[in-house]
């Protein structure tokens, strides 16, 4: 506990913001669907880190419980996401999101 408090809260805030931004830019810039999934996970884990850090600093366990909820839901979400991706791969033979442009104005 003491070692956690040796590092100022702002550092954790900064670290999670940086991780979150890397995730956001990854989702926006990358073309491979699997990498995009990983970037979404990175965003969620940046949030988890922030929750745990705040929880430790506030001396309140609610934040840590929330992290469990996020992990469980993220697992469910990724299960669905990978299933969708498998379906797409079966139909197009690719996981490049450029192939998904059938719906245009």
């Amino acid at each position: 506990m003491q070692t956690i408090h040796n590092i100022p809260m702002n550092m954790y805030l900064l670290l999670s913001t940086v991780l979150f931004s890397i995730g956001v830019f990854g989702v926006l810039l990358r073309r491979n669907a699997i990498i995009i999934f990983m970037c979404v996970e990175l965003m969620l884990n940046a949030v988890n880190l922030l929750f745990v850090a705040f929880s430790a600093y506030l001396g309140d366990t609610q934040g840590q419980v929330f992290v469990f909820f996020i992990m469980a839901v993220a697992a469910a979400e990724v299960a669905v996401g990978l299933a969708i991706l498998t379906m797409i791969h079966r139909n197009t033979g690719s996981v490049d999101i450029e192939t998904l442009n059938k719906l245009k104005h």
Partner: protein
Amino acid sequence: MITLFIISLLGVIAMLAEILKFKKLLAPLTLLGLIAAMGAGVSEWNNPVFIPVFNNMLLFNHYALAFSISLCLVTFLWFLMAQDYLKTETAITDHYALILFSLAGGIVLTAFGNMVMLFLGIEILSIPLYILAGSRKTDLASNEASFKYFLLGAFAIGFLLFGIALIYGATGSFELNTINQYILQHPGEMPAFFYAGILLIIAGLAFKVSAAPFHFWTPDVYQGAPTMITAFMSTIVKIAAFAGFFRLFSTCFVSVADSWNQLIGILAIISMLLGNITAIRQDSFKRMLAYSSISHAGYLLLAILAINNHSAGAIFLYTLAYAVASITAFAVLKKVYALKNNDLIESFNGLAKRNPLLALSITIAMLSLAGIPPTGGFFAKYVIFNTALTGGHLWLVIIAVIASLIGVYYYFKAIIASWFKPATDENLIELSLQDKLLLIITTLLTLAIGLFPEFILNLLS
């Protein structure tokens, strides 16, 4: 509370139907269950006190009950409409279960008292729909819709969670009331990242309600998903997401309204103008409804912007009128799509000669969406604009009126096509008893909302 139990139980029963082989009974059972859920909501209405359940996680007050009943009503109409679709799908029980679980998520969103339930409600609402949007497994358009919906849904949830984390860091709690108390006790002392948290939550929720500039997934997903699923997304999800949006901002962040007012105002302006102007150029009816749903999100944001005593009633009336009219529009589209196998507005040509009931219902629905009296949509718009005027947002109301005038143009395209354009083939269209019943119910409901708006407004004020 009982409403939520009944809906969740129905979802489980729907899954058991596959194993225990009573698939035939599922349709009547679901419809009865939805009526029972509505009845349970009505019976709880007169409770003298509303006690929070599960450690303040959920609170079923009048606001939550009204929205839950309206969600169940719209789902009931949706099930009536989607019977043909559900008959042709191979995995019927899965469809029933996923729709019912999604509805349960929507009900959680109307009643949450804690950020945890906000997050879970949105996820329970969305995850079944990611699957349903892609339920045509070999159709590439459906695949694409499902993938886009999933990806942007997950992306939006990331923003929402980051916002929740920052607010937790600033106030030390997830409970809406505790957060509100904390803000009131520390006026002007909140750290900068608290405000950043509010902005991130707005961005996350704007994705869910498809307000511009976070709307870009909407047209593609609406067009690619099976028509019945699109109908579900544009009604239930819209009602639930707005119910949650308003509940969060009216109980939690109302005391720091100055910090987010302008942002919501800008989102509303962009949504109203962009939605209406882009809708004009669409040939596909489904895409047009998608852009129209973006513009309706803009009008609804006006009520959130001007939080006062009438806002809750205004949002309730508007979402109900919008959802009922949309269900009518999708029911007619379903019939037209079955004949022509495309969803172009041209396909509506000569509908009045081929089946007057279809033409009449689409006309009433379009008039309601455009906001022309005596339909429900007119009074809903009037009440929303009035609420915004009371809040002193004159300029926004002027822009909203201009935007809805633009909207009249494209809604009338469908009306003109069905009454005045010559049909390519003159055969009469047969309607099943169920479809007739549904069209009559929804059309009468649209008119009833227009004739007795006071009754609905008084429920929540």
